[in-house]
């Protein structure tokens, strides 16, 4: 057997096992919309942790992080900082979102906006842009899958064919499995990914340099500027780092699928404890960054940095182990892709289609429509992935700049009774306009700062000012119902 057949068989086997486990987990439960999309609000600490890690540690973390360490150097460190700080922020907002979700039966991000601001228009705006901005994220997963199959098949299977196979599999998996299935596959995925990260991050420096220390001493001598910011770039200095880390940490739970994950928890307490343990998972990224730095010395001159981790693995390990790494990579693309598809399609059916075209639709019909939307979205993102040439991190930064514009509406909505629908709508629109203007004209970073960060600051200012000059609305979702009743009695 040729190496490509060995590697591809192993990948195929891993993906197959993952899919079977997923199908079995979903089987035998009554699949209403609440079970399918948020697993009936039943997840405890362990499952929550797996699901959240499942949606955060995507192909982006696997191939994109090593790709940036390889091609940009120091700026790649932003990834470690923003993920950790994203969890820190989650501690202060997710338990409250969960609590309101339980009390008022919220299932999606736009349910929150609709109930909090009593505005169908605002909810529609949020759902629409939520679906738009997850498309780059979905595209990342498909592009990553394409790269994996291309490298593991020793360039024999074209990238497009592999993306098509992968996207069909993901769609079927979501269609029949639902959220519970996804969480179970996360278990296999996380195990394999940690195995892959450790083996590359530890074995590679040992094998080629005799340890991590000689690796970095060699790098510091041969590429003295690569390991610090701005690394191999001209614009990604400390101001960029600070603005990008703050933007991405704020946006971490603003994605429709990460926001929605809060509703799957069993209690608000689960989410708090989750914020304590999950940052530690970020440590696995260290090994992936080390692999990216090592690749710079071992497989120099790649035009696409996103391929560096796999090219390094292909050069270092036997074919079957390249297959294991490729299989881990394939699952790290499929799990998040499945979660995104699930959330985006529920959002579309429930919060865009129903209010606009068919207000009388029953929950069951919405569930059926959501499942049909899965197939449509999967094909749409496949079409985009075919024609896009952006790197994984560039796609992610675009999506982050967009979804983070929901942050003021969420945080102020939770903690500032004075904020109203006008303010949030005005802030959101101005933020999105700035993102579109700066990013589409390729002026990101803008004067050394992340364009999305500038938009976020403007968004906050506009939201607060507009809320103050327009008539106050009452807050239909107060955090503490009992206390407010109590206060009026006292």
């Amino acid at each position, binding site marked *: 057997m040729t190496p490509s057949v060995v590697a591809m068989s192993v990948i195929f086997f891993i993906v197959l096992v993952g899919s079977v486990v997923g199908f079995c987990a979903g089987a035998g439960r009554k699949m209403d919309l609440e079970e399918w999309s948020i697993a009936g609000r039943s997840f405890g600490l362990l499952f929550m942790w797996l699901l959240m890690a499942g949606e955060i540690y995507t192909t982006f973390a696997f191939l994109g992080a090593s790709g940036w360490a390889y091609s940009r150097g120091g700026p790649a460190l932003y990834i470690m900082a923003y993920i950790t700080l994203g969890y820190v922020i989650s501690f202060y907002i997710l338990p409250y979102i969960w609590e309101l979700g339980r009390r008022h039966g919220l299932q999606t991000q736009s349910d929150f906006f609709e109930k909090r601001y009593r505005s169908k228009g605002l909810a529609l705006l949020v759902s629409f842009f939520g679906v738009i901005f997850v498309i780059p994220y979905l595209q990342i997963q498909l592009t990553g899958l394409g790269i994996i199959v291309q490298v593991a098949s020793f360039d024999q299977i074209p990238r497009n064919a592999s993306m098509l196979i992968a996207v069909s599999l993901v769609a079927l998996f979501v269609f029949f499995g639902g959220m519970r299935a996804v969480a179970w596959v996360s278990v296999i995925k996380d195990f394999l990914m940690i195995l892959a990260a450790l083996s590359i991050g530890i074995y590679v420096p040992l094998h080629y340099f005799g340890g991590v220390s000689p690796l970095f001493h060699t790098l*510091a001598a041969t590429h003295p500027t690569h390991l610090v910011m701005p690394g191999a770039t001209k614009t990604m200095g400390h101001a960029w780092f600070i603005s990008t880390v703050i933007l991405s940490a704020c946006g971490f739970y603003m994605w429709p699928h990460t926001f929605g994950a809060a509703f799957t928890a069993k209690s608000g307490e689960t989410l708090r404890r989750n914020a304590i343990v999950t940052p530690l998972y970020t440590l696995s990224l260290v090994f992936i960054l080390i692999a990216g730095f090592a690749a710079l010395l071992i497989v120099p001159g790649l035009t696409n940095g996103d391929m560096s981790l796999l090219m390094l693995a292909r050069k270092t390990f036997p074919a079957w182990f390249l297959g294991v790494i490729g299989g881990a990579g394939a699952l790290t693309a499929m799990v998040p892709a499945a979660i995104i598809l699930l959330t985006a399609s529920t959002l579309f059916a429930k919060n865009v289609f129903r209010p606009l075209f068919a207000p009388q639709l029953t929950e069951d019909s919405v569930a059926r429509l959501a499942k049909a939307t899965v197939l449509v979205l999967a094909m749409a993102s496949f079409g985009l992935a075919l024609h896009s040439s952006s790197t994984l991190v560039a796609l992610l930064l675009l999506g982050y700049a967009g979804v983070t514009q929901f942050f003021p509406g969420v945080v102020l909505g939770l903690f500032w009774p004075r904020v109203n629908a006008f303010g949030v709508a005005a802030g959101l629109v101005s933020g999105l306009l700035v993102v579109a203007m700066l990013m589409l004209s390729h002026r990101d970073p803008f004067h050394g700062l992340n364009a999305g960060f500038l938009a976020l600051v403007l968004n906050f200012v506009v939201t607060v000012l507009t809320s103050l000059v327009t008539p106050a609305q009452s807050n239909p979702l107060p955090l503490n119902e009992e206390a407010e009743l109590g206060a009026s009695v006292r």
Partner: protein
Amino acid sequence: MRRPSALAVAIGLIPFVGMCLSVPWWDRITPMVFGLPFNLFWLILWIVLSSGCMALANRVEERRKRGSAL
């Protein structure tokens, strides 16, 4: 369910200072620690410290909840 206490929020700001705002002071290669460039080592250290900060903030919130229940 009350909004987070000022003390818990203040604890949450510590990781932001450690990992983000202070970047000009720690973005250096030397001194290398455990063979890692100083900036990489610093971030690893702060991942662990951030987890500790969250545990502390959780403690503060739990204690407050128990206090108000009495």
